[in-house]
């Protein structure tokens, strides 16, 4: 089981051995991670990997089958109300009253978390300013653009200044401008000291926002660490992707022969009849030999792609499949 190797000053979110089963189906399988204040922790994985189930267990929407989760030291099952009081949830789907003015949405959710009177009014004004909707405060969300609704959805999740914020794929279906605005808002919350749990299947978001992250697939946590730590797992190797037609077994044997001839850091990431993905150092220098080996088996190359390693590559290395498959 991977363990976090970073020490947090104040741990605000702890998940230990968390599992969630639906009958025989294991949606989340003994996941453990923790996140501290003033950081953004990314939960990365393809659709159906178990990210939302994990978030729902932390938010109290689902009861874990086993294991524990704690928010600001409060167990989400045993001390649910205290845990939820310290939590702000920004769900993947919008959760707004479309027929209630934006300011009233914020006030209502503020009251749900116990804010009242002057402190509520002040905080609602701050949030409206923060999400850039001060001039549309009295308008109904049903008249808003998609990006404005997303911002209000975010505002409703942070109106009570929670120390822990759960963001479940907040940028799905959002235009680039609104996405950039959301990133700024998340960074502002982090800078203000909040612990942010951010789920996404966009690698570039994780690379930009997350201080540390965990990669999850089929309910299991398959890697964890800071972005740099995870990149280091790939070393300085490039990623070479060949597209065309390749007989599977002869191609595999030809590449294996190349490795045996001294190309020690050459490694298969994936292979099928239409594409081959390899990692190796200084790939450009080895291209002629690789081409010769592949075409010698009767294969043909129609497209070649060479790129530096990133989290997408790591996911491919760990799971043998693309993140957005």
């Amino acid at each position, binding site marked *: 089981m991977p363990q976090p190797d970073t020490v947090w000053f104040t741990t605000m979110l702890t998940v230990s051995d968390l599992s969630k089963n639906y009958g025989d189906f294991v949606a989340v399988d003994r996941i453990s991670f923790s996140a501290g204040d003033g950081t953004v922790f990314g939960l990365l994985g393809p659709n159906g990997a178990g990210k939302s189930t994990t978030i729902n267990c932390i938010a109290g929407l689902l009861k874990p089958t086993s294991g524990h989760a704690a928010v600001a030291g409060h167990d989400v099952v045993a001390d649910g109300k205290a845990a939820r009081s310290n939590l702000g949830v920004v769900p993947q789907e*919008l*959760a*707004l009253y479309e*027929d*209630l003015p934006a300011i009233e949405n914020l006030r*209502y959710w503020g009251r*749900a978390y116990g804010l009242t009177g002057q402190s509520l009014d002040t905080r609602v004004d701050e949030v409206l300013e923060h999400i850039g909707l001060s001039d549309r405060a009295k308008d109904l969300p049903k008249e808003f653009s998609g990006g404005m609704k997303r911002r209000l959805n975010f505002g409703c999740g942070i109106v009570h200044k929670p120390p822990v914020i759960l963001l479940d794929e907040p940028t799905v279906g959002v235009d680039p401008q609104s996405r950039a605005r959301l990133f700024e808002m998340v960074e502002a919350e982090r800078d203000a000291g909040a612990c942010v749990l951010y789920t996404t299947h966009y690698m570039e978001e994780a690379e930009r926002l997350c201080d540390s992250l965990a990669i999850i697939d089929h309910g299991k946590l398959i890697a964890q660490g800071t972005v740099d730590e995870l990149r280091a797992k790939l070393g300085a190797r490039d990623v070479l992707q060949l597209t065309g037609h390749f007989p599977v077994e002869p191609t595999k044997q030809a590449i294996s022969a190349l490795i045996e001839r001294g190309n020690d850091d050459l490694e298969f990431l994936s292979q099928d009849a239409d594409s081959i993905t390899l990692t190796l150092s200084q790939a450009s220098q080895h291209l002629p030999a690789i081409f010769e080996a592949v075409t010698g088996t009767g294969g043909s190359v129609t497209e070649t792609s060479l790129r530096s390693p990133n989290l997408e590559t790591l996911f491919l290395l760990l799971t043998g499949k693309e993140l957005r498959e």
Partner: protein
Amino acid sequence: MSFALSSFRKDLARWRQDFMATLIWVAIPLMLGGLITILMGSEVRPHGVLLLVDEDETFLSELVVGAYSSGELGEFISVEKTDFDDGLERVNEGEASGLLVIPQGFAEAFIESEPVTLTLRTNPSQTILPGIIRNVTEILLDAGFYAHQLFSDEIQTLTSMTEEPSDAQVAAMAVAIQNKIESVAPRLFPPAIAIDVVEPPHAEPSPPLALLFMPGVIMMAVVFAANGLASDFWREREQGTLRRLVSSPALLGEFLAGKALAAAAIIGLVGGVTMVLGFLYHDITWVHLPVSLVWIAVSGVALFAWFSALQMLFSNPKTASLISMMLVFPLLMAGGSFFPLAVLPDWIAAIGRASPNGFMADRLTTEVTSAAPVAIDLSSWVIVLAGAIVGLVICGWRLRTGFARA
């Protein structure tokens, strides 16, 4: 409790955005109630016109004319003298209930005991008033026959005189008539048949039918509103706000209390508008209004809670709405919204009173038709309040067991 008030205000604010639905909840019952009230509400006493052609114009024919327009009969029938052609035309055009022709020589024939024919034509488009006229005419003829039999000697004496009778003859005739009356008086006054007059127990006059219909119309508005408001749980679920609520520390009980309060206010308003119009139309004492308003508000919350619980049992909003609507119309039918329970056969009315809205409409009828300012009994209040609480508890259970989290 502050979150309950917050939820209450939130639902009222959202309801204002959907005001058209409220208009429909009020308009349909009002239209239906208005139509039926117009049909049932004009309770005018029947009054007919008897056209009379007096071709005899004697003292006896005048007595016949007077018999139709005297006493209580005069409240139902007006007698108008006319000629035959005009009378016939008016009866044929339906302007009168009957045409009675007293032929020339009627008095003479009566005195001489000779056959005479009174012609009565009745209006075929009417039933009750021509029947009354026919019965009165037959009674008059019977009375004339018996009078003729009783005083036949005196009539014979009068008709045989060729000259004006002397004072002595008049006096003798008067004495003879008096003797005959005195001889039959012991059998007539009091009547030989002893009659025990048994008066029925004093009963309150039954309220007009249109008034009995009013509570059913009000309950129709309440049922529409309760069913419409119940669909808000599905709307909230689809908007994702129930999930957000469950992940907050707010209590579901307070959220439900806020919803129930909002339902009470909205249903009170919807039912109240219908009720005030009914009170104005039927001239009901305003002292009944506060109790009636509270009754429909509490009843409305009970119906809202049960409709909500029912709708939350289904897996999608379309099915929930369809099943709920399918239930509404049989409920309205059974509960006296289309036919007042008071005019239905006893066994059907008993079923209607057992339906939730029929029970509520029945108690509302009691309230608005009673002389006492508070006529709904305590047990009825307890039943409706308990129904509301049980319904809300089921809603809470459903929210906690997955409906809100989905």
